């Protein structure tokens, strides 16, 4: 079995850890950047989460993109 295969992702992503919200994610992913700017950047790359309808919010199984979408 090829258990240690590393194929570069099409678009870099992570998954939330227990208790994560936009702020904790932004702090962890972009520790050098001002918090609110990092949150806004993260949300702009993950509009499907930022504007998710209903009361679901972010779930531990969600994908969170950590880079901008590729140009079409």
């Amino acid at each position: 079995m090829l258990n240690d295969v590393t194929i570069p992702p099409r678009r870099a992503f992570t998954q939330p850890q227990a208790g994560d919200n936009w702020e904790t994610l932004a702090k962890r992913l972009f520790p050098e950047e001002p918090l609110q700017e990092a949150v806004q950047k993260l949300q702009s790359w993950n509009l499907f989460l930022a504007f998710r309808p209903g009361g679901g919010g972010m779930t531990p199984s969600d994908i969170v993109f950590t880079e901008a979408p590729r140009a079409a």
Partner: protein
Amino acid sequence: MSFDLLITNARICDGSGGPSFTGSVGVRNGQIVAVGDIAGEATETIDAEGLILSPGFIDPHTHYDAQLVWDGLAQPALEHGVTTIVPGNCSLSLAPVRADHRELLGATFRKIEEMPQNAFDAGLTWDWETFGEYIAAIRGQLGINIAPLVGHSLIRLWVMGEDARKRPATDAEIAEMQEVLAECLSEGAIGMSGSWVDIDHENMPVPARLAEPRELDALCATLGEHGAIMQIVPEFWDPDLLCARIDIMADLSRKHNLTITFSPLFDSNSSPDLVDIAHERIRLQTAFGARVVPQMQTRPIDLSFDLTAPMSTFATLPTWWATTLLPHEEKLAKLRDPEHREKLRAEINNFMMPIGLDLDFADAFVKRPGKASEGLVGRRLGDLAKERGCHLADVIIDIALDDDLQTSFGLEALGHSRSDKIGHFLADPLIGIGAGDGGAHVTNFSTYGDTGYLFSKYVRELGAISIEQAVHKLTQDVARIWGIKDRGLVKPGYAADLVLFDPATIDRGPEIAVHDLPAPGYRFIRHAQGVRDVFVNGRRAYNADKGYTDTRTGAVVPEAA
């Protein structure tokens, strides 16, 4: 040699995908015992000249869990040549479930799979809690084979109770989930289903979505240890999200030596390159040892809707959704209320399409009329709005009110409609055929007859796939992906699940409404065309002239340990 059944002069598509050949097949004690140039005494002999004999089709994505309690034939799946179905997809089975959670499960299942509540309430006996007890409750009446999945959401609910809907699991709860999963596998489950997408009746994520990656990893370890499979629903409408999910599935597959199938792989105009992008990602991950198999359906999406109950058509229209939830008299009053109608109009004006669908209410038409709307059948709502000088919302509401909400509206070819492209991918060896959703969405659209449509559209009309390959993709290929042993081939030693059909006429019939639910109401189905006989474990289950038989030879695949 003597046989229970001898089928002679058939053109045999044996499920392998190899060239068809003319020959005979002998069946004894539910098994195929001879294939080729054979002769002998038989209790029944069928001259199949002009017909194709193939293995019974295997439908890997269904939601017959509830229907099987009141209809062990899973009608009309059998008449389409389907002899094995996989219920329990998308994280939702009907077991294991504690008595306290039946109402919650029922509400979730009905919302996601769009089942009428009265049929659900009248038809389900709920005389089970464990997975094994559910299997015991249905197995005596099975006329079709089942290879059931156990839902991840059910396992979570069993172990965590209501907390399954609220939080990640502890280490101890994950360990208990692994034990429950192993028990379900020993009681007849072929694998586990999950979802990264579905929302319940309160618009909250289903319990499976509250799982941290380590929980899914642990459950996949259990599946891998048992040689079982996982089915899951990813964000199928977005290329970046889908590719991320494919990568996650591929890592789990390699780590746990596990096959993971996802559904659907869906083509839509809103993301025209998605299927190509996902296919390339799957090709890459497969080359590096992953076993990730997408399921692609054959038919385009047609939808029906009325105002009697919430339907997926209103998924992005919260006021419409809430209105359809109201009790009947209260709903009529709301629909007549000018202030409320203004809100309904505004939502149509700002309509956001449901994921992946090219939906425009102006293109909807009157499909199934009540008495007052009989003269409007087939009329486009956009045209009626112009003629009447009113808003689209008013056309829908006025027609519905004139018939006490009995009128049903239709929308056609909302997605998965580019048949040239779809035909190409249906023939691709990396892509499985499935995702049909049989038994679900019963008042929204017919989920039956995808097999017939494969032959009529993609074999006969477009020539996108040979008849031998089409049979292969519905039989041995599914059995291989799912680890179903001794089915899917016309070969000595294999179960005698067999279909006799006319290659020139096999098709799905028109969509019709039937009243065969265990409570007042209707569902949309399609009858089969061109299928002459269907045999399940050697016994005739369906004949085109005589209909369904009383035979109940359906098996649970795999058998409980």
